[in-house]
């Protein structure tokens, strides 16, 4: 066992170190040595003082945590019910709902925030249509939490639905027979059995909401709601740049996430949640019966709030001749699409670049994530918890800081050869940033699967690698595929790392859209977003339906 194990552990560990550990290390170095980027180690620890100097730090930390907890709560409220229904019942159009709930990830957060602003602010679309002005709500703590929740709740939806597919009805049946009402069986048995998945998804939500900048920046600035990440971005937003200060702030965020991770890890490993045993049970989902349409209505409601409204706002904006013209038929115009098709080559280049980057990222993260998860859950070494913890950090570090870390690491003059300056660095950055999704999802999934299934493969003559490939990976597949789709969606529009790392001359969808915004062409930006969203969700839909066709077995994701 030892050899195969150590080869795989080595693979997983080196992947993590290269993709995550290296940038994190350089960020730490930058935090400690303010002149590090210039190759100098003078003034060690001097920047750490900003932590003590900043009297608003406590307020910011409190706001950050309050926001994160509100968003976690919101994600549970929105994502849990539909996730449970999707996992346990035949929901009409399940595969289509999956794609619908991926759409929030296809919309860059800063665009979503603008879309909400244009819908709800005074004289926004809602006002123009119905005379309702919800600006007061939107530009408040609640509004920020609301919009961030809508960006993130699908994480819970996917994690919970995939976990419950494995738990199935078997354990709940046993509870029912022993006197539990359906709701009791759910609360006492089914739900606790999906705790690893819920905790994992909430950990990502936590990390994302303390790291997310676009939404608080767009909505919260005017209410004076400061979060930690605001400070980090301010340090990097204009001349003079303060890399070191930003790094120090990021260290603070990383610490928070590590604490959250430790808590999550404690919850998920304190007990056993193995629901996939060596005696397979029929995982056929239950029929909803008369509840069919009310459930569809619930899905539709969640989709309407979380997807349809922002998407419509984006679409409407992209078709508006002028924004000041408002919602008038005479103001509707396709002219903002023409520059996209005119500059054809550039927009197309951006779409193609983002497309292949997203595909490669999805597959690489799934592969590496699956491997890391496997080592973390099934391995024996001491370093497993370290690997696990390391793997959540990218989510906690503001993307721009992570990008700086990647530059510091990969642009070092001492490297004999480097990917920096090629498209490869973008791939590395994307994988590093998005690795937490498959790892969290797969770790949660593996905690549900009995180890004897792996053992049986080994005994049957499979090397650890082949057991992984033929047994463990396929068993993880439903969760890994869900994570891959998330990764694909996010990678297809990633912005910040792309701006910072793309070799000069290369464009992605995110940078293209951002550039349009920058020069005041809001509508063209929205138009490009619409095109990208349509294309990507189309691809996701086709893939999803194809997977459904493949999943003819009783065991499908």
């Amino acid at each position, binding site marked *: 066992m030892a050899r195969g194990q150590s080869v795989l552990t080595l693979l997983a560990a080196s992947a993590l170190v290269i993709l995550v550990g290296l940038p994190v290390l350089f960020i730490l170095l930058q935090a400690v040595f303010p002149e590090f*980027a*210039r*190759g100098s180690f003078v003034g060690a620890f001097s920047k750490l003082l900003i932590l003590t100097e900043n009297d*608003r730090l406590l307020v910011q930390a409190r706001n950050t945590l309050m926001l994160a907890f509100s968003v976690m709560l919101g994600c549970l409220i929105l994502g849990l019910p539909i996730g449970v229904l999707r996992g346990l019942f035949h929901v009409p159009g399940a595969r289509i709902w999956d794609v619908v709930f991926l759409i929030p990830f296809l919309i860059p957060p800063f665009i979503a925030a*603008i879309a909400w*602003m*244009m819908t709800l*602010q*005074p*004289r*926004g679309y809602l006002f123009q249509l119905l005379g309702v002005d919800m*600006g007061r709500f939107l530009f408040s703590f609640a509004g920020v939490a609301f919009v961030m929740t809508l960006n993130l709740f699908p994480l819970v939806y996917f994690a919970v639905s995939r976990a419950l597919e494995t738990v199935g009805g078997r354990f709940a049946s046993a509870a029912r027979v022993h006197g539990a009402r359906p709701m009791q069986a759910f609360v006492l048995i089914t739900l606790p059995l999906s705790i690893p998945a819920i905790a994992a998804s909430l950990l990502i939500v936590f990390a994302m909401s303390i790291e997310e900048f676009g939404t608080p*920046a*767009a909505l919260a*600035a*005017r209410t*004076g709601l*400061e979060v930690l990440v605001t400070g980090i*971005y*301010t340090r*990097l*937003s*204009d*001349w*003079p*740049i303060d*890399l070191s200060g930003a790094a120090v702030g990021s260290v603070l965020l990383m610490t928070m996430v590590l604490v959250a991770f430790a808590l999550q890890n404690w919850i998920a490993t304190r007990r056993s949640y193995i629901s996939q045993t060596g005696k397979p049970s029929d995982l056929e989902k239950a029929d909803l019966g008369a509840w069919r349409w009310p459930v569809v209505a619930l899905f539709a409601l969640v989709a309407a709030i979380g997807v349809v409204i922002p998407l419509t706002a984006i679409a409407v904006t992209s078709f508006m*001749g*002028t*924004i*000041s*013209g*408002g919602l008038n038929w005479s103001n509707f115009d396709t002219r903002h699409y023409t520059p996209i098709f005119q500059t054809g080559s*550039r927009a197309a280049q951006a779409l193609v670049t983002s497309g292949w980057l997203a595909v490669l990222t999805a597959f690489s993260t799934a592969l590496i994530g699956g491997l890391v998860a496997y080592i973390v859950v099934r391995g024996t070494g001491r370093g497993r918890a370290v690997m696990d913890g390391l793997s959540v950090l990218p989510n906690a570090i503001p993307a*721009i800081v992570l*990008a*700086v870390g990647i*530059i*510091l690491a990969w*642009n*070092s*003059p001492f490297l004999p050869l480097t990917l*920096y*300056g090629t498209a490869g660095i973008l791939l590395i950055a994307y994988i590093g940033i998005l690795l937490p999704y498959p790892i969290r999802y797969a770790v949660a999934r593996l905690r549900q699967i009995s180890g004897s299934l792996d053992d049986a493969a080994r005994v049957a003559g499979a090397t650890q690698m082949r057991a992984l490939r033929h047994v463990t990976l396929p068993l993880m597949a439903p969760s890994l595929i869900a994570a891959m789709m998330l990764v694909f969606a996010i990678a297809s529009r990633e912005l910040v790392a792309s*701006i*910072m790392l*793309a*070799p*000069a*001359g290369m464009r992605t969808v995110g*940078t293209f859209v951002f*550039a*349009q*915004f*920058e*020069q*005041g062409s*809001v509508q063209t930006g929205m138009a490009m977003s619409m095109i990208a969203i349509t294309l990507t969700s189309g691809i996701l839909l086709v893939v999803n339906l194809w997977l459904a066709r493949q999943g003819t077995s009783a065991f499908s994701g």
Partner: protein
Amino acid sequence: DTLTFYTAGPGDLADALAEAFEAETGIAVNVFQGTTGQVMARLEAEEANPQADVVVSASWGSAVEMHERGLLMEYLSPNAAEVPDFLKHSHYVAQGVSALAMVWNTQSGVPRPSEWTDLTDEAYRDLVTMPDPAQSGSAFDLVAGLEVAMGEEVWDLLARLSANDMIVPGPNAAALNPVLQGAKAVVFGAVDYISYGQAASGETIEVIVPESGTVIAPRPMMILQSTANPEAAQAFVDFVLSEAGQELVAATWMMPARADVEGLRPGINDLTVIEVDEDAVAARREEIIARFNATVTNR
């Protein structure tokens, strides 16, 4: 042979310059375009192993400091002869110039303002936005410049604007967007060229430069000392400062750096420009931002 060009500001301009330059010289230009912050963060992170040849920033101060740190190559393009003296230096030169202005939504139902101080009027209560000096170099320059022109009064002005419920939602685009849709009516201190462009494309906004004076934001163009390809870099700077290059700059509604090239909008000579001593202001940056925060954003 290729050239790497990092630039803040309009991507279209960068692409147009790159294409035209390549057409003329056969040297391909790889463009990296972002916000000033992104360009500078990238330059800084790459400092151990610089990648860029030519850089354009939206903040004159950044050029001043990079020169002090010895990062810039000395080069004064022959084409810079027509560039006014205060827009050039031995190591950097303006690519184009923008000014800070008020942007007014003509459909907003509030009277057209003509002076900065007009916006303290009750009519503009809760209808004014301003870019955040902490996040936008030009907004910072405006505050600093008005302080030069008005002295302590600027703080009184800002306090009254704040009392009039002016909001400071973030960088330039964030301040402009609510005005376009009509949620707000006027931007205090917008970068002008973007709004000129939007007005030209039919948005019902007007760019108003107060008679009393405003600040201009020249965009320094510089060649990095570390460039591996100084000839190409110099050729590129020459090209940007050529008439053809400056026409491209003008097409973005900026003021060309060269006095002899017409802009599409009022030029430097039509404005009352407040002179700002960049070095002195840069030294007081923290202080000014802290005071701004205390006065306006209550942070």
